[in-house]
């Protein structure tokens, strides 16, 4: 009796099987790639008012804390209130159409709805105050904000990224005097140890405890 499959058919079948295996691999790779893509590194995010950190920080040299008032004391760095913006813009560029929204907010009392750039999951309890107190500079996590016309995410903000630092913080510390400067280089390794000791860091075990960030 004749075979069910011709030689060609057999070849096709084999290729099909191979293709199937290939597809599985591809799916995994795709998943990983998409996960990476969602870190949104370096993607400027459009805001209701095209606020430029590059101009305010880079050109005008305004200190971070002028607007982010609670960064040293509280968990949230604190977004500037409308009043803070108007502190200057009641005088400067007050008739700029770009700033109309600002004046409207002032008049109506309705807050401006900014798009969030740095978002942590709700079950992560991050505290700016402690990080600043220990010498983690703004630039360490937020990148060169002074070069961002529109703010973007500079670091992945993934758990493993947090852990990298929590496991070995010394390498990421700066002297408190330079914490808010954008271009201060990391101190050489020998000083890193000193900084770590000066900051009275908690033990590595403590800093990698689940309860340090999760409740």
């Amino acid at each position, binding site marked *: 009796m004749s075979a069910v499959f011709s030689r060609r058919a057999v070849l096709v079948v084999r290729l099909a099987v191979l293709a199937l295996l290939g597809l599985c691999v591809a*799916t995994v790779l795709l*998943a990983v790639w998409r996960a990476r893509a969602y870190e949104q590194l370096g993607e400027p995010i459009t805001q209701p008012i095209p606020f430029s950190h590059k101009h305010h920080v880079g050109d005008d040299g305004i200190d971070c804390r002028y607007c982010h008032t609670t960064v040293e004391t509280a968990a949230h760095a604190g977004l500037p*209130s*409308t009043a803070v913006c108007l502190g200057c813009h009641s005088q400067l560029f007050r008739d700029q159409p770009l700033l109309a929204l600002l004046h409207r907010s002032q008049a109506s009392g309705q807050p401006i709805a900014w798009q969030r750039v740095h978002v942590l999951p709700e079950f992560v309890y991050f505290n700016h105050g402690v990080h600043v107190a*220990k010498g983690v500079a703004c630039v360490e996590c937020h990148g060169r904000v002074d070069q961002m016309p529109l703010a973007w995410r500079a670091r992945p903000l993934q758990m493993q990224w947090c852990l990298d630092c929590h496991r070995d913080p010394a390498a990421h510390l700066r002297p408190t005097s330079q914490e808010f400067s954008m271009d201060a280089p990391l101190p050489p390794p020998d000083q890193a140890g000193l900084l770590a000791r000066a900051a009275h860091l908690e033990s590595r075990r*403590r800093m990698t*405890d*689940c309860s340090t960030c999760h*409740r």
Partner: protein
Amino acid sequence: MTLAAHRPASAMHPHPHAPDDPQVIHIDRAAGVNRRQVLAAMAASAALANTACSPPPRLQAHPYVDLPEAGGGNLPLYYASAFVRDGFAHGVLVGTQEGRPVKIEGNPSHPSSLGATDVYAQASVLQLWDPDRSTVVRQRLERGGDTRPGQTHAPAAIASSSWSAFEAAWRERAGALSDPHGGATLRVLTGPMTSPTERALLAALLARGPRTRWHVHAPLKDVAADDGSWMAFGRVVSQVRHVDRARCVLALAADPFSDGPGAVRHAMDWSNARTALREGDAGARAPALFAAEATPGLFGARADHRVALSPARIEGLLWRVAAHWMPEITPADVGLADPAVAAFEQRLVAALRAAGPDALVIGGAGLSAEAHALVLALNQRLGAIGRTVTLIEPPDAAPGAGTLADLVDALNAGAVDTLLVLGANPAYDAPSAFDMPRALRRAKLLVHAGLHVDETALLAHWHLPLSHAYEQWGDARAHDGSATLLQPAISPLYDTRSTAELLALLAGDPLRDGHALVQRQWRAGRSGDFDAFWRASLRAGTVADSASPPLEVHAARLPPRLALQADPATTMLTALFVPDPAAHDGSFANNGWLQELPRPFTKLTWDNAALLSPATARRLGVATGDVVRLQVDTRSLEAPAWVLAQQADDVVTLPLGCGRRHAGRVGNGVGFDAGALRAGTALSASASLQKTGRHHAFAVTEHDIGQHGRELLRTVAAGGRLPPEKPRDALYPPFASPEHAWAMVIDLDACIGCNACTIACQAENNIPVVGKSQVALGRAMHWIRVDRHDLEDDGASGFQPVPCMHCEQAPCELVCPVGATVHDSEGLNVQVYNRCVGTRFCSNNCPYKVRRFNFLQYSDETTETLKAQRNPEVTVRQRGVMEKCSYCVQRVARARQHAQRTGEPLVDGDVVTACQSACPTRAIRFGDLGDAGSDVVNARASARHYAMLAELGTRPRTTYLARIRPADPA
């Protein structure tokens, strides 16, 4: 990627009324819902790996428009204020997060609190955010036709209106009042009122016309007590008890640890008085508690000597005891001895004699006026008055005010044009004999003001929404008369007015703003720097030395001895009407935390029950759960029975406050309305009982009272020592916490089983309410449960709070496949919700069964106001994750972060857990084992210290101090 539980703060819209819109991150709710659906779908779909990585929803941030003073941070702000219950002020600190009141703490400088709270104060924050609160002025369009008794009107007949509309209507009405020759009659009905401001404004209102009158209605007030003090002294007095000064306290049908505005203070004083005894000094001077009670109370459970008697027999006991100090009492008055209690009586008399002026006798609801008079007289003869008990002018005294009965007569006589009901709900809680709904309909104009659209509101022509205590400026007096200023912790959520503001409107006062009204009241006749006084009083939460001065009284007249009636005929029972431990008089019926709070003795939730003693139940052939028909004269009622060992024979206890018809989504139809049996304001009656043959299913949290010989709740003789824990050799190395080692010690000698810890924990940790059916399925979510055990010696009950033990060798951690429950370096057994997949092996492996599982989506994700109540520092758990006591890890973290930020080291007392801060007897201690001087280290060194189920080698961090047995067991 793991879109697990979310913090409520991020789910909340800034409320238009909030004074300082918190900086909230607003998540689009639709996204939230989709997320859950996606998750569900994902679980089913094969393409899980791929869909799991869809991007997080685009979030927005809403900054302040103007940053408020003290805004911005994420630390809680506390406002000293007071929670007003039954007219009396309970001093509290209202903890606000991001501008929202989320947690109540006691006020250490308030005489009724001393830093602790009862369950009601804890639950009051949920009352503030109750989604069923009345939000708008309502006017009834047409007069409801149906006037049959018991009928209430469909809300359909009521339309929402406005304050201006009401004010207009009122102005034309008020004109008629002032008509000198017989203008319109105005009656005002309020609850007990201690607020100086409100009373002044009320007086002004009443002064507007010749035919005005004030009536006071307190459904739970023990009228007999007032009559008794009339008999004794010819005036109404209020007794302020000083349990700490007493060497012997006798409670007759009374529960000083839970009844009345001074309850928390009584418990605290008692506990403090035992300090020396607890530290091992067997001879230490501690008040000996004697309880003769008809129905079990917290005081009786903790008493050194206790007997359960019907009120009649308790009075017999009182007369016999009093005779020892009052020769004028004739043997005829004394009556026959009661052999059943001879031993108790003997010991009691001896103790009273030994105590002399340091004795304290307390009479409670259910006693006759004569008995109350005799109690006062006895206290006086003992020399206790002025020492262990101070007599003061009742802070809520309402001279000249009529009773509810007077009002009903006036109404039925058609003599009332206008009736104002302020903060009362007579349509529900008036004795049924008054047939209140019918009487109320006789008023030509009925205006009701309250927190809820309740039974009375539905009968009223106008309903006016009142502000919650935490939304208003006001004042009120404490149990000892000292005044407290109420300050708002948030501006009114809805268009509401405080009682003072409303009274100002009614009285046509030029001032309308609560703040101004209260200030005017206190500025009046006050010399010196008012602003300094004002600031100091607000900061302290109480007005300095404003306590009522003690009254001078003449020698008490002895009351006549009532005809000695033997026990009621065996078929008749004494029905006792008591406040429900959760719903109180019904005003808390719509509070889910309280409804789900296990009642101290029955561990019953979402119900009230007719309590019977085993002997009586046997005689009547009734078992727990049987529905019985109770009959008082012509009135009858069906209620499920509960057989309780501590109950007195021939007494049936009927908790009031349940069976509400219009309480709200939570409280409607929970339990039965015992008020239906009441003939008048008396709190006891003679009732008959028959079985109906039907059965009722209860939702109970503890099924097995008793220890089965397992030493879970240990007791020790005074000055005694527990056998030392023999060291066990373990395979695993001992757990080391280099930095801090958190631990908790619970003193069972102090615990009175009041449940304050349970509900404080619920408020602090966003613990969901699951409802009756789920509780019945064994799924109550309380992180700290209070177990009750019958103690071997006498009928006393022991209470044992059981939170997570935070075992150093935790069995739960061993079996979790994903490491969702692990130890942190400070010895906390942490539950990582966002890692938990819900195998529930940890719960099976927990010997203490303290883990709670979200079998369904329990936490309400849709009701905005409930979201606003939640603590933003604590994750709201999603369905399918395990949870349990975390030692208030958020409070530990707050303290640690502060220490890390400022460099100041943590000291003992920096971390106070929610249960610890609420506890009225300071039974719970929490601290760092690494700190040699800390409170817990000392406690662990006590001779009474033990670890529960230590033989399992779990090495718990939560340990206990054994309860001290009475000197000579009864």
